[in-house]
């Protein structure tokens, strides 16, 4: 068990290291210096600026300094916005994205599970078909289509919700729905197929033969065995929420990380892009790592095999 987690941890670290190195290499492969500007500067000023940003040192030293700073969670300084550190910019915008992300994850899991359970219990009946139609639509309608649609219908036409911003609880409704529909669809399909499978398993027949009540069979016996795929999916759900939020924040005018990231990309502000990418990556890789551990903790079979040998 401990060994399993340790191995996973080492590999998580390797992935991160690979990404950081690749990011650093890519950013340095860009032609031209980030300090070039239209304004004419003397050679001395250029040199001073290079020294200030540490760009006069050899690449390998720069790389070492970058790694060292990263270990202290220092992501560097912006080259376009003066005197602004990447850390500060992230901490200013992350709050919005975090709250929206949490709202979306909770919505996805709750609504997805509910939809999936209903579909499985009424397998091949009207409610199953209805739930699966919703699920297929969720997969087919991307957030960049859904978000403007919701905004147009409920904010502009009916005026039920505010168009943009994220201050009051009511502001969360539309962005959360737009961000969650795809994951609701995925979770509903996962739960449905695994619940249908476990409802046909032998241990359910035994439970029925024992005379257990229907709800006990579903909740205690069948569902516990079919919740596992959802646990694995949680790590990917975070990834979906993060990338989804890049678009959603743009459309709903939320000053979160996603919008910040896009503005860095359009500005070609390399240290900012690099810092944000690495921040996102740490977040995502950590979430997947946690999902892996939770998976082992939840599934007794995995626990047994992880204790003996590492896969």
């Amino acid at each position, binding site marked *: 068990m401990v060994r399993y987690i340790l191995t996973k941890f080492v590999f998580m670290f390797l*992935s991160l290291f690979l990404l950081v190195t690749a990011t650093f290499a890519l950013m340095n492969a860009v032609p031209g210096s980030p300090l070039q500007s239209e304004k004419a500067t003397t050679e001395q000023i250029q040199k001073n600026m290079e020294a200030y940003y540490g760009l006069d040192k050899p690449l390998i030293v720069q790389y070492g300094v970058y790694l060292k700073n990263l270990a202290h969670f220092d992501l560097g300084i912006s080259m376009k916005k003066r005197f602004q550190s990447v850390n500060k910019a992230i901490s200013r915008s992350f709050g919005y994205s975090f709250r929206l992300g949490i709202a979306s994850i909770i919505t996805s899991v709750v609504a997805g599970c509910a939809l999936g359970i209903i579909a499985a219990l009424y397998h091949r009946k009207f409610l199953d078909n209805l739930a699966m139609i919703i699920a297929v639509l969720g997969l087919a309608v991307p957030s960049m289509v859904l978000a403007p649609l919701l905004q147009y219908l409920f904010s502009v036409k009916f005026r039920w919700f505010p168009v943009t911003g994220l201050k009051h609880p009511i502001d969360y409704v539309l962005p959360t729905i737009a961000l969650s529909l795809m994951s609701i669809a995925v979770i509903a399909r996962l739960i449905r197929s695994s619940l249908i499978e476990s409802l046909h398993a032998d241990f359910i027949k035994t439970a029925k033969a024992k005379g257990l009540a229907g709800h006990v069979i579903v909740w205690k016996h069948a569902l516990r065995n079919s919740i596992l795929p959802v646990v694995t999916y949680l790590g990917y759900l975070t990834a979906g929420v993060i990338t989804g939020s890049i678009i959603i924040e743009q459309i709903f005018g939320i000053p979160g990380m996603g919008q910040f990231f896009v503005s860095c990309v359009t500005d070609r502000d390399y240290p900012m892009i690099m810092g944000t990418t690495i921040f996102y990556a740490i977040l995502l890789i950590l979430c997947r790592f946690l999902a892996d551990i939770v998976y082992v903790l939840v599934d007794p079979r995995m626990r047994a095999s992880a204790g003996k040998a590492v896969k």
Partner: protein
Amino acid sequence: MQPEVQAGASGLSPEQFSPLGRNAADFEKVVRKSRTAWQDIRYRLTSNKLAMFGLILMVVIALFAIFAPMFSHFNYYSNDLNNANAAPSYTHWFGTDDLGRDMYVRTWKGAQVSLFVGLAAALIDLFIGIVYGGIMGYFGGKVDEIMNRFAEILYAIPYLLVVILLLVIMPPSLTTIIVAMSITGWINMAWIVRGEIMRLKNQEYALASKALGAGSMRIIFRHLIPNAIGPILVTLTLTVPSAMFTEAFLSFLGLGVQSPVSSWGMMISDGVKAMTVYPWRILFPALFLSITMFAFNVFGDGLRDAFDPKMKQ
């Protein structure tokens, strides 16, 4: 007494109700033609109405994408500022955008881009995935362990971040998008192939081929891969919509294809800004992006069900 009278009346006699006896020859009689595995799959697929609907939609959209721009009076790049933001009409079926470009042609040009990216990314994934996964699965042991670890490390790196990072650096073009998407996109396919090969490699026909002196590569690519075609095909079909989504996502952010070439993602991002005044500018690209993603997803699902023997009933 009674039954005899009745039987006589309806032309039936008691002898007709006696058991025929078990005739061994009858049991072996083939009542209808037997179906091969492929016919079974085709039958299950064609009897799935939703999947067939998806297939028809796919074909229709592909035909429009290829031919609609050819047979229009307009092209996707000419500006006509006197006719900017025109509503859908007889001349401009889908209206025009802020530069007066015909939205009908631009929508189908966008379909070309979307389909091309989706198919190209899926085919590259297929090629790398089959080679990597095939080798991983067939040789097993140390080779498998090292290659698998490498894939795992690469897989943990968030896909979209890598793509965005590469696009920031490389000049934006269709090739760049496809290359960027293929860097980590193939891993899923490789794992599917690996699992299939591991399952198949101990079967008798692989052993027979080995006994006849066939090399590893011949066994993998001539014997094992063709037998793993089902899951590979399903993964391929489901890769297309996700690649199309990624392309739309990148173009939405302005990292994808550049104007004047159109893309659904770019048109949606332009359309959002003018949504309340000129709704047709977002309506058509959004509609066709959704329809295409729907078609591929539904068809992929149908294909998976058709290949899954558990669905046989």
